[in-house]
């Protein structure tokens, strides 16, 4: 499977490297402006606007990179390899889903990681005494719901698209559109929820960081990352057995 992914990723890699580089730069703008405007000194409208603009740019960069990935995996010519292989369908599906969803998230996780580091640093530097407010709790709940929503979206996309999506290249345009829609709904949700989730991390994780001395932001981020991947694997495994007709 590694070889498959290596070759499938090749044309997509250069786009993704550019996307990551762009994200790091944009994240710096986002972090600095957002840190000043949102987390540090509320009311700095220019900083907030720049921050939002940078995050939108991250989204656009991701969309461009993702289109390359989707084209690589689902359209002819490369789609033929998947359509013709006698490999077990779970491998075929898994490699596609992992590829799209993991890679789709790379730049956004960099952005999120940057935010978490930033909020941790801000919290430590300004020695804010952490108190978990009601809004922090709600944001944490929202974050959990978001991850559930992502899974549901993947579930439904595959269920709706089960026939046409995984058939021969050049066919199943509806399924292809559904899958694209889900990918971008996912990206859009990331776009909307990243500031919220980081705000949530800010409150909850900063409190833990200050009280325990452990960088809970980074640990929390890693836990979320692993949790999402594990959940995606489980959902995919279920779909392969029950829903998806390859």
């Amino acid at each position, binding site marked *: *499977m590694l*070889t*498959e992914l290596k*070759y499938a990723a*090749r*044309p997509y890699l250069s786009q993704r490297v550019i996307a990551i580089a762009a994200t790091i730069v944009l994240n710096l703008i986002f972090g600095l402006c957002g840190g000043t405007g949102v987390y540090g000194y509320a009311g700095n409208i220019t900083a907030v606007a720049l921050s939002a603009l940078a995050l939108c740019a991250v989204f656009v960069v991701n969309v461009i990179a993702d289109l390359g990935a989707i084209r*690589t995996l689902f359209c*002819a*010519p*490369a789609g*033929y*390899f*998947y*359509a*013709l*292989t*006698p*490999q*077990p*369908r779970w491998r075929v599906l898994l490699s596609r889903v992992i590829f799209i969803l993991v890679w789709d998230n790379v730049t956004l996780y960099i952005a999120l990681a940057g935010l978490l580091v930033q909020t941790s640093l801000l919290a430590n530097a300004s020695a804010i005494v952490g108190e978990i407010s009601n809004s922090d709790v709600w944001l944490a709940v929202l974050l959990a719901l978001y991850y559930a929503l992502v899974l549901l979206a993947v579930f439904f996309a595959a269920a709706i698209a089960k026939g046409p999506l995984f*058939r*021969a290249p050049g*066919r199943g345009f509806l399924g292809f559109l559904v899958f694209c829609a889900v990918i971008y709904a996912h990206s859009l949700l990331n776009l909307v929820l990243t500031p919220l989730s980081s705000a949530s991390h800010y409150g909850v994780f900063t409190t833990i960081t200050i009280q325990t001395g452990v960088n809970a932001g980074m640990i929390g981020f890693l836990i979320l990352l692993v949790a999402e991947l594990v959940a995606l694997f489980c959902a995919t495994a279920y779909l392969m057995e029950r829903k998806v007709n*390859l």
Partner: protein
Amino acid sequence: MTLLTIRGLEKSYPGKKALHGVDLTLESGKIIGLLGPNTAGKTTLLKTIAGLLRPDRGEIIYPGGAVGRAAKGTVSLLPDISIFPAWMRVRDAFAYFQAMYPDYAPEKAKEMQELLGLIMDSSIHAMSKGMQERLALGLTFSRLVALYLLDEPLGGIDPLGKHKILTSIVSMDLEQSSILLSTHLVKDVETIFDRILFLSEGKIIYTGTCEEIREQQGKTVEQVYVEVFDHVN
């Protein structure tokens, strides 16, 4: 030995019926020509056998009774379009094939590389159409399967390329397998066929062995082709 049985196969596209109840039995050890004009349904038939298209009606019984994805392990398709990303080198294409197909046979691949004159470090985007076709054929034959499906392998190929391709087809050990080759360039390939099928508007309208045609009727396959399709049209 019977390799593949097709019964009542039908396939439609929006506004067009491509296959009208195809019945067919293929035996092992043969090179079979699937001949017919453009739009006869040759590509649709091959893609349906390969599992790229799902038939509307009818059934296909694969070698060894394989079903589902396992059936894809019994056939190797050479599509009528180039399926390789331009950035790949020949070496990458073989490595990719090896990763994707469990029935890939490295020794067979090496044999094909030498026979077809493939240079492993060549970049695909710099290769001529003929060389790309040779590469595709080499990859198709590098799998150990029961049935090889070749869709128009000679279209737009120069004489040397045709010679190389035909040589590699004839060199195949077909004791346990067969080749189904679709083309409308009858004259170029008729000498290699054991049996021919004429397909017209999604129906098999003629089937026979080349021996019968040559010895009993005293004609070439091309002459019979012209007679049959002239009559149809």
